[in-house]
């Protein structure tokens, strides 16, 4: 039986060896343990011994040749075995496992060293004292701490940003730099923290308004087991903002009925054309309303503005938020430039945003903005309802279900069935008034009842 002799692994970082010289020639007999060759694995010469007795049948490499560890370098055969009959061996396959480098290969030489210049400038300006109470960075009353990285906390202090308004996308819901960055960059205007400097004591009358609500007295005849539920982060945020909005903005509510017959017809036609091939582009009723509301707002910039510090801030862009119900709350992503987008674009955007809203994958720059909000409870069969304005926006449109109703036709002097939808606009009476709001709704109604106008607009 022929036996292979391989280049041995001698030393854990050896990957190749050089044959210096054969100490035996083909045809010589070998005793086990006898030196048979001299190799150089790594700057040192060693002899390799024969592990088997027999006859050195063939040598396969020349003196001076370098081969990888594990490669067959000679064959030992039986005495008397014809050398020519010895088959060429497999590449060390039947030998002990080819000793590939067990360790990590010597790492490549590093890239050119860059020498770090030591700064000699003085230490940066000291941060504000950590002990100073931060009124806005919320230790929520329930004790649920805002998770935010130290970097974020510092940035929040420096930029007066209310961390309780920000959703964190880091591990464990931690607010990390990318979450707060859009606020710092000024892309998004809310949320604003109370200023760090102590504010002047507000005037007497204002103080009354700003006082915390009086604690609710428990009913004397309260009975039954009570399960106390701590509010989630989001719930608290919603609670706080809605309370602030309802308290500070005098809401007026104007309702209008809109005949949705032609709008629905248009929708059917569009979807027949597009949605069959591209379900993502299927236009919903809400998409129509978003488009119509946005186009209508062009004529009513006040309703597209922010009310801040007794001033109205008019926006060129019309970014429409739409409320999406999610677990234990809601979130309102917005579609930027909704008036200029096609129905298809609005459809795709709203689907994507809604889906990601439900998955928790929205980025702050997708929801912490917008100039006008639409809230639709039509899917619940609601006839109409009133919504709370999202500050610092100035208006919000509450949309009910479209239902067949009898409507008086003055020409035929009879009732006829029409597909009617009620919308209720809530407007901030500090910024606008009933007449303007009503005129806006007329415009919206006209657009939806003659939908070609919305496409042409």
């Amino acid at each position: 039986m022929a036996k292979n002799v391989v280049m041995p692994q001698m030393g854990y970082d050896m990957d190749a060896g050089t044959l210096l010289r054969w100490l035996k020639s083909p045809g010589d007999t070998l005793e086990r343990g006898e030196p048979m060759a001299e190799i150089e694995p790594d700057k040192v010469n060693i002899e390799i011994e024969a592990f088997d007795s027999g006859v050195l049948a063939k040598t396969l490499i020349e003196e001076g040749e370098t081969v990888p560890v594990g490669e067959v370098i000679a064959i030992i055969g039986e005495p008397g075995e014809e050398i020519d009959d010895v088959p060429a061996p497999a590449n060390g396959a039947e030998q002990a496992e080819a000793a590939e480098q067990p360790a990590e290969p010597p790492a490549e030489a590093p890239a050119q060293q860059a020498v770090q210049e030591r700064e000699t400038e003085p230490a940066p300006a000291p941060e504000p004292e950590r002990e100073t109470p931060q009124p806005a960075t919320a230790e929520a009353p329930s004790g649920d701490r805002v998770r935010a990285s130290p970097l974020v906390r510092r940035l929040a202090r420096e930029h007066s940003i209310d961390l309780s308004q920000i959703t964190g996308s880091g591990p464990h819901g931690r607010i990390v730099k990318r979450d707060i960055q859009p606020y710092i960059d000024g892309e998004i205007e809310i949320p604003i923290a109370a200023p760090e400097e102590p504010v002047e004591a507000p005037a007497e009358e204002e103080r009354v308004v700003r006082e915390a609500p009086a604690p609710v007295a428990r009913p004397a005849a309260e009975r039954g087991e009570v399960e106390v539920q701590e509010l989630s982060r989001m719930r608290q945020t919603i609670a706080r903002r809605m309370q602030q909005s309802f308290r500070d903005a005098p809401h007026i509510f104007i309702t209008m009925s809109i005949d949705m017959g032609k709008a629905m017809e248009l929708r059917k036609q569009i979807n027949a054309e597009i949605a069959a091939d591209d379900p993502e582009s299927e236009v919903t009723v809400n998409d129509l309303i978003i488009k119509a509301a946005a186009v209508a707002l062009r004529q009513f910039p006040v309703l597209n503005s922010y009310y801040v510090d007794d001033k109205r801030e008019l926006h060129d862009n019309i970014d429409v938020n739409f409320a999406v119900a999610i677990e234990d709350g809601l979130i309102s992503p917005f579609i930027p430039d909704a008036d200029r987008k096609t129905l298809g674009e609005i459809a795709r955007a709203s689907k994507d945003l809604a889906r990601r809203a439900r998955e928790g994958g929205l980025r702050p720059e997708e929801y912490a903005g917008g100039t006008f909000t639409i809230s639709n409870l039509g899917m619940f069969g609601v006839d109409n309802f009133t919504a709370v304005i999202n500050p610092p926006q100035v208006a919000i449109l509450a949309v009910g279900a479209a239902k067949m109703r009898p409507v008086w036709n003055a020409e035929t002097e009879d009732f006829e069935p029409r597909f009617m939808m009620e919308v209720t606009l809530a407007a901030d009476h500090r910024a606008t008034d009933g007449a303007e709001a009503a005129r806006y709704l007329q415009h919206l109604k006209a657009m939806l009842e003659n939908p070609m106008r919305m496409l042409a607009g």
Partner: protein
Amino acid sequence: MASTLADLKSLEEDMLAQIDENGIREITYRQALQEALTEEMTANENVILMGEDIGAYGGSYVVTRGFQEEWGRERVIDTPISELGMTGVATGAAIAGIRPVLEIMTINFSLLAMDQIVNHAAKISYMFGGHFNAPVVIRTAAGWGQLGATHSQTFEAWYAHVPGLRVVMPSTPLDAKGFLKSAIRGDDPVLFIEHSLIYRNRGPVPTEEYTLPLEGSEVRREGTDVTLISWSRGAILAQGAAEELQEEHGISCEVIDMRVLRPLDTDTVVESVKKTNRAVIVEESWRTLGLGAEIAARIQEDAFDYLDAPVGRVGSLEVPMPYARNLERLVIPGKDEVIQAVLQALA
């Protein structure tokens, strides 16, 4: 005498070291050490080498091959297997005015000499009120490669813990040569820790003589998203991981090579973290109470308000090193572990 072929090979290796117009050429880490030792022994006849098998055997990592033939047995001394004794002898010789460079074969064996290193060499200057010193240089090597539990450890954290010692762990031939020369010329006890798996790494080294002060860390790669911190072979690993992170993940890593472990300069690290807001430390030793823990502590002390994520540490699994190759691969952190830690820091 070594065989003719071996000499030719050595010559060939030397010729392969390319020299460009700036007088820079590439040599291996091992060659850099050899040059440093040769230059210092030439310059000062009181520089002697001691260690197990450094003479006739040429050194277990072949660093001192040919040295005994060149300098003789008086200056290149093969010691008995007496780590404690020989470290004390080297230290005492340094006190009495010569400059021994002791080789402790691997850092695993230095445990036997710990009393001499920590209780004697490190203490001489302070304990005796600065009246005299023990400028002994102890060269040793970390490393692994299916060598088993007692031959695969690295204890730089233990030595970097001790006031009075200078501890360096260079990763490049340039640093290795410059540090070793400075260590030999300097007046303090120095623990010079090499790594068995980087002896063949090549790097630029000037042809003209130079030394490097035993201080400071180096930015090996500039970046913006995360600071990777390591030393010795870990620094090379970190740079490799940084390349892959850039190509595959578009993540820009700044890599800092600590180089000098005592005194530990974290100024550069802190500055970097203030820029990147994230840090990951990579070490081959066990994570628990490794040097990474110290660096992480300092980062949170000095750059707390700049951290966007907890400081990550990558180290060996907390086991004595197993023999099986696949298990060993699991123990020592590789590129994947570093990449995972970086992704975690950016989550």
